[in-house]
């Protein structure tokens, strides 16, 4: 008697659990649709023509032709992609290298005034770039770097070094010291220890830092908008607004350009998701 009652209650509980689970799953799926569908719509609109875009927004493209994508690519997107790739790659390399040097100095050498250096470099994390814009314009004009991609490379590096140093330093602090101590005993210089031992050991966090930086530099808008004005030095995010201004009524081309600029970074994220998540968890875990 008792046993049947208990069994009945268990079945009851199970039924509720199943309902709750189904509700949760459908919630996840609905949210997923809300997130992904606008992006799919954007890519599809790149295949339509103006008449179709003004028709039913939910309809699939009538023809899968790449015409709009080719047109967008030839009307400026190619130049913007080139600049974006150049700025992203160069600033990623500078940022990671400078940060690794700094982190090495802070964790493995007898550098004087370490707490002060840490405070200065990591304190840069607190400062907002928006506030610095007007003086930076004056400075870069004085240096003759205004409206060149050097401006973006330097600024992206300067503003990302604090965060990247923070990540690499945390990782280096956790590395065992036996290896580099042994190497120093054998007469290796600081430089050799850095290039031959520490840097190779830091590869995972270096990759994470590169990925985080690429995500930042590819998408950055404020600096890119303010410090560049000519088409030949504009990055993709700024270039898109120029395309919008120029081809504003030719919606399919605008949609195609948007899709081209979003696609690489989504691919990079999916390909390097593991490293990306490690970078984030290192960054917030400490």
């Amino acid at each position, binding site marked *: 008697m008792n046993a049947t009652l208990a069994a009945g209650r268990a079945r009851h509980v199970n039924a509720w659990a199943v309902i709750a689970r189904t509700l949760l799953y459908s*919630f*996840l799926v609905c*949210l*997923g649709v*809300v*997130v992904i*569908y*606008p*992006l799919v719509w954007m890519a599809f609109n790149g295949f339509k023509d103006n008449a179709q*875009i*003004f028709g039913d*927004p*939910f309809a699939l493209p009538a023809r899968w032709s790449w015409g709009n994508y080719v047109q967008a690519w030839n009307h400026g997107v190619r130049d913007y992609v080139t600049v974006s790739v150049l700025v992203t790659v160069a600033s990623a390399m500078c940022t990671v290298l*400078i*940060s690794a*040097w*700094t982190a090495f*100095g*802070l964790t493995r*050498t007898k550098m*004087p005034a370490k707490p002060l*250096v840490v405070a*200065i*470099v990591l304190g*840069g994390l607190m*400062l*907002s770039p*928006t*506030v*610095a*814009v007007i*003086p*930076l314009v004056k*400075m870069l004009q004085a240096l003759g770097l205004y409206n060149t991609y050097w401006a973006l490379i*330097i600024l992206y*590096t*300067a503003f990302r*070094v*604090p965060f990247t*140093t923070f990540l690499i330093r945390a990782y280096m602090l956790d590395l065992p010291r036996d290896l580099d101590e042994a190497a120093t005993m054998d007469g290796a*210089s*600081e*430089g050799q220890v850095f290039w031959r031992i520490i840097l190779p050991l830091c590869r995972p966090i270096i990759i994470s830092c590169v990925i985080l930086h690429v*995500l930042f530099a590819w*998408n950055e*808008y*404020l600096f890119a908008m303010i410090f560049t004005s000519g088409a030949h030095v504009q990055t993709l995010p700024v270039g*898109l607004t120029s395309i*919008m201004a120029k081809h504003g009524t030719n*919606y399919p081309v605008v949609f195609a350009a*948007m899709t081209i*600029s*979003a696609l690489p*970074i*989504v691919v990079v*994220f999916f390909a390097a*998701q593991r490293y990306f998540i490690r970078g*984030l968890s290192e960054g*917030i*875990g400490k």
Partner: protein
Amino acid sequence: MMVATAEKVSAVAYGAARRRWASKKVRVRLGNLLSLRWAAIALILVGWFVYYPIVDNFIVSTTDEDIYTGEVTNVGLANYDRLLHDPIVLVALFNNCLYALISVVFQVFGAFLLAAIIEDLRSERWRRFWRAVYFVPSAISITVTGLLFYFIYQPQIGLLDAALARLGLGQLVQPWLGNEHTAIYAIIAMSQWQGFGYTTLLFAIAIQKIPRDLYDAATMDGAGALRRLWNITFPLTREMTGLMVIVTVAGAFQVFNEVMVMTAGGPNNSSQVLGTWLY
């Protein structure tokens, strides 16, 4: 090249100093000082391009420059006073607060719940899948998402009005960004769409760090899913929640790009925020 020579020089100085430790303490000091070269580029770069502009900005902000004569007079904090009596500043400030409030609700507490739901799934593959899917908008540039939602909110070609009409909510159809009363909400909604995946990912990482045995023990003791959420997950990610609240609120007061791309503060200044108003 320069670095390589500097390294060699210091290696010699350092090695020599080591051998004659007792007598040549000075050289050791010099060697230590040379170690600063590892941080030199970072210090110069950050000092020059991150700190200096902000100091310069403050100095400029306390002066009044006559644009004809270039004469600079010191007016102290009067410019700050003038700023506080502009009516648009109040609209902007209100919008920033609204932004902060809504973002905290969705991007902190909403994201926390979502992360808890995802991490409760049994298959690791599905957990990874949902985390990645929700993150995708955060990986995309603000200009792309801003333009995308600019189109979505459009009455003729947009998804939103078309969806509302299909659902039989035709009376709600309107130009979302062209209406003074809805523009700021439309922008905030876009920014939730873009941002919640990022905070969800961060919460998921924090939840993964909670030891599994706690949950197993609680389940053995008969605690349901909600009890476990409230008594284990929430307290043990409290640090993360606090951090997220601070970051989200700070972000809401610095917001600029979203508004700039979608409405540039219009219509009739109704969607101004402090960032765009200053610009």
